[in-house]
């Protein structure tokens, strides 16, 4: 049969799912960890349940403690029951799914463990028809990434008769140098087109919708620039604390944890130029271009453009919560920031002179992620300047979570004899607000990785550009102790964050 004929499955035409992945094995390093149990395995089960994965799909978990295949299956079943989107485990579906779950015990530096892994994968290829298709998922603490990649290369697992891919979780490096080093180590073994760096925000429906919103509607792009936009505010606020993750967070802080990856990706989505085509590299080229156009600060400019904070005890919801320094395993003199506010500028023709204000923090007043584009005021006020005629600027707000959707605020006349005005909001809310559950981000991302679609994953140059931006700020903060804590839990962060934006005659949105 001609090659072109075998490439297309005629039965797929018209089906919602253009194709399912070829049978493959996902090898999850760190199978007993939080990420695997709360996100990855529930997502894979859900994909199986929803008929997105083929028969023969397999999982090999790798971790340090000795376990049998049955033991790991039982543990995963418990996790899936607690954390999967469908909320329950269907016994027969589970039995079918669990048949393809295996375990290999190994210390991550132990070469012999990788030889055992290779044997297992070869056996799975024979028994379950996975044809050498392998996805290696690094769900371990990041210090193990280099040794795992090196060992995969050493035993010949980076290449196979099928396809092989590598998924790397954030944080990708601890700073620019370590990110570059990690990239180099990975590229010693894997080609860039085999590497999928996860930023799970990119798997969210609303974030993906930014592309559609900007580029499928003719009315927004002409005003999406410095002539009409006054500034952009992006807020990623959490009301929770560090939830027992001091061992990670103490070494990270809000700048590394949220700004360097999620928020700069949101900036890229909002600020990028339209791509020539909607293929992964064209889109990522445009994101990389705008990330490189962000003005990199000198370290001594950090105080002018960046504010950090650390939460003190306070009331969140109706609960008194401890300060960051009182959290388990946090140093009582910790200098780690749990809040960051930034003023960022993009030096290109579209955005020159337009500030992007970013803020993120833990133990803030509420959980919300929002991108707000505030437009310039009209050039002329025609309707008088009385007390009833204070005009608010138009704001387009993209709410990523929890209340996913888009709203536009504009002025409208108050019914009556005079020309008083008031702001009104036109809303469009997504499925989750409407009671229809959206797929979990990891379901989409895992499926895309298996399908070989890197659109929703970050590329080497993006990651390095993002690190390049935050490095001067990290450098300054590393050398200068902060006066922490400086904001109460349940508020919107330190006063200095308000001053950062008020200096420019603006203010943070009240969310």
């Amino acid at each position, binding site marked *: 049969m001609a090659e072109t004929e075998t490439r297309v499955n005629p039965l797929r035409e*018209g089906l*919602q799912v253009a194709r*399912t992945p*070829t049978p493959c094995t996902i090898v999850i390093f760190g199978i007993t960890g939080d990420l695997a149990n709360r996100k990855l395995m529930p997502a894979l089960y859900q994909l199986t349940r*929803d008929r997105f994965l083929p028969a023969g799909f397999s999982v090999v978990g790798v971790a340090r403690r000795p376990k049998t295949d049955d033991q790991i299956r039982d543990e995963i079943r418990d996790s899936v029951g607690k954390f999967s989107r469908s909320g329950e485990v269907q016994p027969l*579906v589970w039995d*079918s799914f669990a048949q393809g779950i295996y375990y290999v015990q190994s210390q991550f530096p132990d070469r012999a463990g990788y030889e055992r892994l290779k044997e297992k994968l070869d056996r799975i290829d024979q028994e379950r028809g996975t044809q050498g298709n392998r996805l290696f998922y690094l769900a371990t603490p990041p210090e193990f990434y280099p040794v795992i990649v090196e060992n995969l290369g050493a035993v010949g697992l980076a290449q196979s008769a099928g396809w092989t891919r590598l998924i790397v979780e954030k944080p990708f490096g601890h700073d620019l140098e370590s990110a570059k080093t990690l990239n180099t180590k990975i590229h010693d073994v894997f080609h860039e087109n085999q590497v999928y760096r996860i930023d799970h925000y990119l798997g969210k429906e609303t974030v993906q919708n930014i592309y559609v919103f900007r580029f499928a509607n003719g009315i927004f792009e002409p005003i999406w620039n410095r002539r009409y936009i006054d500034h952009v505010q992006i807020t990623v606020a959490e009301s929770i604390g560090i939830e027992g993750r001091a061992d990670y967070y103490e070494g990270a802080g809000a700048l590394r944890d949220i700004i360097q990856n999620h928020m700069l990706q949101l900036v890229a989505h909002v600020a990028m130029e339209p791509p020539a085509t909607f293929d992964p590299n064209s889109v990522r080229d445009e994101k990389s271009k705008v990330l490189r156009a962000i003005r990199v600060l000198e370290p001594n400019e950090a105080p002018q453009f960046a504010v950090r904070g650390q939460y003190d005890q306070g009331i969140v919801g109706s609960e008194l919560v401890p300060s960051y320094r009182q959290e388990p395993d946090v140093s009582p003199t910790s200098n780690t920031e749990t809040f960051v506010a930034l003023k960022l500028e993009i030096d290109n023709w579209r955005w020159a002179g337009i500030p992007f204000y970013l803020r993120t923090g833990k133990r803030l007043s509420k959980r919300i992620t929002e991108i707000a584009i505030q437009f310039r005021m009209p050039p002329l006020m025609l309707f008088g300047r009385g007390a009833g005629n204070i005009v608010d600027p138009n704001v387009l707000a993209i709410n990523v979570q929890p209340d996913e959707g888009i709203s536009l605020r504009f002025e409208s006349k108050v019914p009556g004899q005079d020309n008083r005005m008031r702001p009104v909001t036109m809303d469009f809310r997504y499925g989750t*607000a*409407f009671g229809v559950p959206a797929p979990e981000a990891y379901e989409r991302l895992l499926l895309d990785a298996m399908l070989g679609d890197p659109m929703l994953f970050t590329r080497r140059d993006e990651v390095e550009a993002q690190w390049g931006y935050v490095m001067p700020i990290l450098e300054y903060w590393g050398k200068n102790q902060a006066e922490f804590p400086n904001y109460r839990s349940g508020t919107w962060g330190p006063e200095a964050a308000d001053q950062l934006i008020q200096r420019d005659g603006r203010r943070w949105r009240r969310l």
Partner: protein
Amino acid sequence: MWAEAANPQGLLPPVMRACVMNLIVYVEDQTGVEAVIKAAQDMAGRHPSRLILLHCNPTRPASGVEAWVSAICQMPQPGGRQVCCEQITLVAHGAAADDLHATVLSLFSPDVPVVLWWRAAPDPHRALFRELVNASDYVILDSTHFREPFALWREIRRAFPAMALSDLNWARIRPWRELIAQFFDLPETRPLLHEIEKVSLTFSAHGDERNPTQAFLVAGWLATRLDWTYFSGRENEPGSYDLEMRYGDLPIHVDIRPVEAGSARTGRLLGCVLETAKPTEGAGLSAENAGCEFVVTRRVKEDLIHTRMYLLDRGELACATSLEVRQEHELLMMELDRPGRHPILEDSLEFSSNVLDRLHADPEPRA
């Protein structure tokens, strides 16, 4: 109604009025009215619509037209807004029903599509049906309600050649199509598509109630996707068929059989087995892959589909996956997610109509 909901005193969060389409629904009985109202409430989140509900029974004595307006609101999530849309109900029976189309046209919300859900057996000769179809962008029917589904579909298609039509029965068999297609996503099994020599389809029946529509939809789908032509066939007994197809010179036998299925609703697909040819000398088939079997089955009491693939050189690979037994409104939502023409559905219907026409015109002797 909306002025009150706007809550001018500001004591409660204002409602959010949403409308992405005009949804005209035609029903002929009170049970249908209740089912539609419930469906609209369930759908309000994903497809908030101006619902124009027509409760008409042409066989009842003529009546005047009664009408009323209400709001369908979905309970908000904590911190969210209440989303509401409008329901306009028109009740008219007998001859009065046939004049309703003018009233309906005047009730459309502008700038949004019009979708007609005819929740009864359609009559393409009836004025109300014709006028509403012509006023709509998308028409959704359900061949479960049809007595002679393929003949009726053909008549509807001829009367409305440009209309975007869909069938909820087609939505019901989507999981089957996905799973059958999945077998052949593999490069090694794809060539076997043109080595299929037998297809066995079973569907649920209760005594004399035998509706093979879903089975024929699958058969028509396979035939049109794989370029099969109909050669001959016979109806052994009501609902039971043996059909001979051809792919070039290669014969393909398709059998469709009813299975007594207890509590399962009648007409539901229960099994699909695709078999490739056994190796024969000089047949020119791929010897290492010949004799393969691809099976999709549903056990009546489970909401699960089981798939089984048997390849000669590898043995058996089985999987169980979930089959969502969709409520009617969920099927409707699936169709509303992808409005527009469905050429593959139309091809399948046309193929099956032709097969049945030829079968009835020139039947083979019964076995």
